[in-house]
C-alpha cells in the first residue's frame, strides 16, 4: 500500500543521488512541486528521463541536478526552446549534460516494456534516421514468423518515477484524468514511485477518462495542492500560459535564472 507522506519526506526517502528519475507528464499534470523539492534537496548526478522535458527539466538542469537526460522532445511547449537545456548542451553550463535521445514512439514503448517486465519492445520506428547512431538502446529484431526486421528498444526501468494526479484516497489509490500520457507505464516501469496529488479524498468518485493506479502499485503519495503549477490539473486548475511565456526571458540569462531559482525554489520551502 502506498504511504501518505509530506512531499519533502517523500523526496528525501525516494530520490537518491545518481538515480534514474522520471518525472512524467504530457503538458498536463507536470509534477513541478516535486521537481522543485528535488532541487531544494540538491540532488546530484541524476539521470533525468522524460518524453517531453519542459520547464521543470530546464530548471533541474540549470540547477545542476542532472548528469544525463534521456528524452524525445525537449522544448517549452507552445513557446519555443529551453535555454537552460541548450546552455548545458552547447556550453556545459552549469555542468556537462549527456544526452540520449529517442522518438516519442520509442520512449513510449521503452516504458511499456518496463511496465510489462520485458527487456525490450518491438516497434516500427527510427528506421533511416540518425537517432540509432547515438544510442545503444535501439536495435533490431527479426520476426520469427515472417522474417521481417523490426526495431527493438530497450526497456526503461527508472529507479523512481514521479507523477502528479488529481486525487488519491487514504489507501493511496490514485486517480488521474484528462490527458494521462505515459504516466501509468512510467509508474509501473519504476522500482519506486511518488505521486503528488491535488487532494486526498475519502473516496474516489469515478470520472470519465480516468486512470486509476491501485495503492499497492505506488510507493508514496504526497498531497500537494497546485503541485502541477504552472502546468495544470484538469478539473482543478488551468495552465498558466503566462508563466511559460515568461520563462523564455527568465531562462535566457544565467544570472536571471539563478535569481529566479533562489527566490522561487530555494527560499520558497517545501510545498507540503
Amino acid at each position, binding site marked *: 500500500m502506498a504511504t501518505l507522506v509530506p512531499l519533502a519526506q517523500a523526496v528525501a526517502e525516494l530520490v537518491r543521488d545518481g538515480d534514474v528519475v522520471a518525472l512524467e507528464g504530457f503538458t*498536463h499534470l507536470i509534477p513541478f512541486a516535486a521537481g522543485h523539492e528535488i532541487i531544494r534537496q540538491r540532488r546530484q548526478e541524476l539521470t533525468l528521463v522524460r518524453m517531453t522535458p519542459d520547464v521543470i527539466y530546464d530548471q533541474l538542469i540549470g540547477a545542476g541536478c542532472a548528469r544525463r537526460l534521456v528524452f524525445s522532445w525537449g522544448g517549452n*511547449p*507552445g513557446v519555443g526552446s529551453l535555454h537552460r537545456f541548450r546552455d548545458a548542451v552547447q556550453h556545459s553550463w552549469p555542468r556537462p549534460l549527456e544526452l540520449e535521445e529517442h*522518438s*516519442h*514512439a520509442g520512449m513510449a514503448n521503452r516504458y511499456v516494456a518496463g511496465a510489462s517486465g520485458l527487456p525490450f519492445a518491438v516497434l516500427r520506428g527510427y528506421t*533511416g534516421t540518425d537517432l540509432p547512431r547515438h544510442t545503444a538502446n535501439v536495435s533490431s529484431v527479426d520476426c520469427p514468423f515472417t522474417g521481417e526486421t523490426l526495431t527493438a528498444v530497450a526497456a526503461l526501468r527508472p529507479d523512481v518515477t514521479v507523477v502528479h494526479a488529481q486525487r488519491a484516497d487514504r489507501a493511496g489509490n490514485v486517480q488521474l484524468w484528462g490527458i494521462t500520457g505515459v504516466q501509468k507505464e512510467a509508474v509501473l516501469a519504476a522500482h519506486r514511485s511518488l505521486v503528488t496529488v491535488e487532494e486526498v479524498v475519502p473516496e474516489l468518485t469515478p470520472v470519465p477518462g480516468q486512470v486509476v493506479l491501485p495503492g499497492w502499485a505506488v510507493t508514496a503519495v504526497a498531497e500537494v495542492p497546485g503541485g502541477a503549477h504552472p502546468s495544470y490539473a484538469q478539473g482543478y486548475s*488551468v*495552465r498558466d500560459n503566462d508563466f511559460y511565456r515568461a520563462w523564455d526571458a527568465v531562462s535566457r540569462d544565467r544570472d536571471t535564472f539563478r535569481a529566479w531559482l533562489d527566490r522561487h525554489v530555494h527560499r520558497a520551502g517545501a510545498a507540503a
Partner: protein
Amino acid sequence: MSGPPPPAGWTADEMMTVAAARQLRDGVACFVGIGLPSTAANLARATHAPDLVLVYESGCLGAKPDRLPLSIGDGVLADTADAVVSVPEVFNYWLQPGRIDVGFLGAAQLDRYGNLNTTVVGDDYAAPAVRLPGAGGAPEIAASCREVVVIVRQNPRTFTSRVDFVTSVGYGTGPGDRERLGLRGGGPRLVITDLGVLEPDPVSCELTLTRLHPGVTREQARAATGWELAVAEPLTTNDPPTAHELAVLRALQATAEGSRP
C-alpha cells in the same frame, strides 16, 4: 525571412497557412503537431473540412477545439476529443498501423528529398551549433502516415543541400529508399512554404517547385533554397486567401491570444 512583403492585406505566413489548410480533404485523419500544422488543420476544420479528424500525440483522437490549442497537451483537446487514449496507444494502435491519412510536420532543416531535421544544427552532434528540441513524434509520423505534408518557412538555411541530422525520413537518398527501409507510408506529398508549394518529382523524388504564392517569383524561391531548385513547367500560382479564409484564420489566432490570462 526571405518572403515577400504582404502584397494585398495578408502576410506570407497567412498565405502559407491557408495553402496548407486547403490541402486537407474533409473526413481524413490528420496527425498534427503544435504550431503552424495545428493552425492550418484547425483552419481547414473551420472552413471546408468540418469532419477533419485531428489526432494529437498527447492521445486526443478527433479533437474539436473551439480555439487554437497552445500546446499538444492543451485541456481543450481532451475536452473535445472523441476519445483520449494513452500515449503508447496513440503511437502503437493509431499511428503505427497506417490508420492516419496525413501527417503534418514542420522542420528546422529539410533537403531536396524531404528529409527533415529537428535535432541539431551543426556537424558535431555532441557539440552542436544549435540544439533543437529533437524528434518527438516526427520520425514515426513521417514513416507511417499515408502521406506527409510539411509546412515550413523557406530560406537557404532551412532548405539545405544536406540536413545535419536525419530526424525524419522523406525519400532518403532518392527513389526506392523508402521501400528499402521498409517505411510503409507514402512520404512527403507536399511542402508548403511562405513562398509556394513543392512536390516530389514522380521519378526522381526530388522536391520541385510546382506553385508560387501570389506576388512571389521563381527567382525568389530559388534564392531561398540551398540547392539548385527544380521548377515545374508550367509553374502555377495559388489563389490568394479569400476574405473568408482570412477572417476565420484571424479569429482563430485571436482565440490563442485571448487565452492569455
